[in-house]
């Protein structure tokens, strides 16, 4: 552990400021709490919000998992994990079940999270109304007045034009019947998982916002009675582990454009393969490692 910096990098005053914002966020689920985000030693847009939230929550005994696109080995996930190993001296893991804190970008793990866990999301644009109304002054008013008509109009226009709600990720949700919230750019496939036993914390560094969902908070994906929300998902099974209930990445295999579908959650796939599940294009895990 690097002792040139404070535990988990941030100074104590900054952590206190973030911690106070987190407590208010938990007390007002789905509401975006402004916080004085700091300049981190990594670029804005690369998880500075998530990193600050994680840094404010970590305890020395934590076991941290970091994923990007569901995978532990994507370069930015590797980089963030290294950062906390260096500045927090915490243990890290790739195993979802073993982690006490999971920082994620763009996915919720497939395996159900448990009471002792915290899921920290990296959020680029926390304001669900931002693409309909660019002004922060206006969107803040809209949340205050619970004025979400614009969002319904947008979704309805999608249906009129495409016959579907044409939002496939960062699909807006309503929290406990009050705040409309951006779930971060997770695929809408993950939306139903947001009613979970773990605590969910969201950090948007550049936009200086923190928000939260306590366990078992009601999370409803916006829809219409005649056009109910559908989570979608691949029509195939995972080529490696044969999972049929997982979110799959499409991999182009050759110049002819042959496709293969594999779990985006690399740990979920590994656990299944260890348990002996083998997909159409897969081999037993031992052979793969060799």
């Amino acid at each position, binding site marked *: 552990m690097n002792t040139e910096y404070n535990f988990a990098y941030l100074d104590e005053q900054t952590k206190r400021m973030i911690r106070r914002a987190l407590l208010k966020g938990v007390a007002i689920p789905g509401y975006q709490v402004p916080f004085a985000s700091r*300049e981190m030693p990594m670029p804005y847009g690369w998880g500075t919000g998530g990193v600050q939230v994680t840094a404010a929550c970590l305890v020395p005994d934590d076991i941290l998992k970091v994923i990007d696109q569901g995978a532990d080995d994507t370069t930015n996930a590797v980089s963030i994990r290294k950062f906390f190993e260096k500045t927090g001296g915490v243990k890290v893991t790739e195993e979802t079940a073993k982690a006490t804190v999971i920082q994620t970008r763009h996915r919720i793990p497939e395996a159900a999270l448990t009471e002792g866990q915290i899921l920290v999301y990296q959020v680029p644009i926390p304001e669900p109304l931002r693409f309909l109304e660019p002004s922060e002054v206006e969107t803040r008013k809209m949340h205050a007045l619970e004025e979400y008509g614009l969002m319904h109009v947008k979704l309805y226009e999608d249906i009129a034009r495409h016959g579907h709600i044409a939002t496939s990720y960062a699909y807006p949700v309503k929290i406990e019947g009050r705040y409309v919230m951006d779930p971060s750019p997770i695929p809408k496939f993950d939306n139903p998982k947001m009613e979970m036993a773990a605590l969910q914390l969201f950090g948007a560094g550049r936009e200086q916002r923190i928000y939260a969902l306590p366990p078992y908070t009601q999370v409803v994906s916006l829809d219409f009675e005649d056009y109910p929300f559908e989570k979608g998902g691949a029509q195939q099974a995972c080529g490696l582990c044969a999972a049929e209930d997982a979110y799959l990445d499409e991999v182009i295999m050759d110049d002819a454009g042959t496709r293969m579908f594999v779990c985006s959650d690399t740990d979920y796939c590994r656990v299944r393969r260890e348990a002996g599940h083998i997909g159409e*294009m897969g081999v037993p895990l031992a052979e793969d490692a060799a």
Partner: protein
Amino acid sequence: MYVAVKGGEKAIDNAHAWLGEIRRGDTDIAALSVAQIRSQLSLAVDRVMAEGSLFDADLAALAIKQSRGDLIEAIFLIRAYRTTLPRFGASAPIKTENMACMRRISATFKDVPGGQVLGPTFDYTHRLLDFKLAADGVIDEARKAATPDEAKPHITEFLNQEGLIQHEPTSDTTPPDLTREPLELPASRALRLQALARGDEGFVLGMGYSTQRGYGRNHAFVGELRIGDVAVELDIPELGFSVEIADIEVSECETVNQFSGSKTEPPQFTRGYGLVFGQSERKAISMALLDRALRWKELGEDSSGSPAQDEEFVLYHCDNIQATGFVEHIKLPHYVDFQAELELVRTLRREATEAKVAKEAAL
């Protein structure tokens, strides 16, 4: 057989090693020292100090070396370093009227008390490449007049004495600090000026330029531009007086802008203000133009809806560290979201084709 991509950590380590090698460049050529950068690329150092919001020329020079001359990257290094520094106190406002000016010009008067001082300016250089520099030529020593020690008064003060320019009330309120509090709108002028002082030079330049071309025009004259050293004083409560802790170089620009008047106020000129660390008059002038454009509400004007008059637009987009991070982050993997979009587009296309077939069959 497909094996999932692994080895992110190794790839990152290798990339960093390669970066280090390229940074050093040809080892047959002597390495650049931080002192050389500091003394010979001083305007780059000034920009990094200004937008990095940290007055430390050695660190700025180091950052420039580390960033291979990418100034936004250097500013980023300085910002990240700055955030971790403990705060000992807040300095008293600097007194730019007491500045030891190396340059001081006014466009509004032919001559002024204290005189016009050109200083070390590029202004009247003919922009011809000087091949002597490539050959490491010896530089003729400049002949400098002995700088008179007396303080040079602010030129806008002469207008103020006559009531010809809008009076700027002083205030002892602690100004807000956007590095410690989240940005909240509407912003005070002090907060806007802080944001502009550390804002991207290119952005502020472009926005200032747009006001001259009619997007929020405010008819500016450079009332005064001055560059030089000022003393920084810190109040020490335990001692009961303030102590001079440093001299810093700043560039200050005051513009004299179109007059306004109302039923209660006779016509008078208005002001725009720019203040930047180091020698950066392009930034100081642009900042003053933009500051003036942003003051429309306070001065009882109508907004023409121009970008330079929209404080939310300006404040949320002037920071190059925020901007570069978010613009560049789209190179990070987004394949999960893209997959979701792929599925949606495929579904929509399939349904459209089916509908077309059904329609044709019905004909």
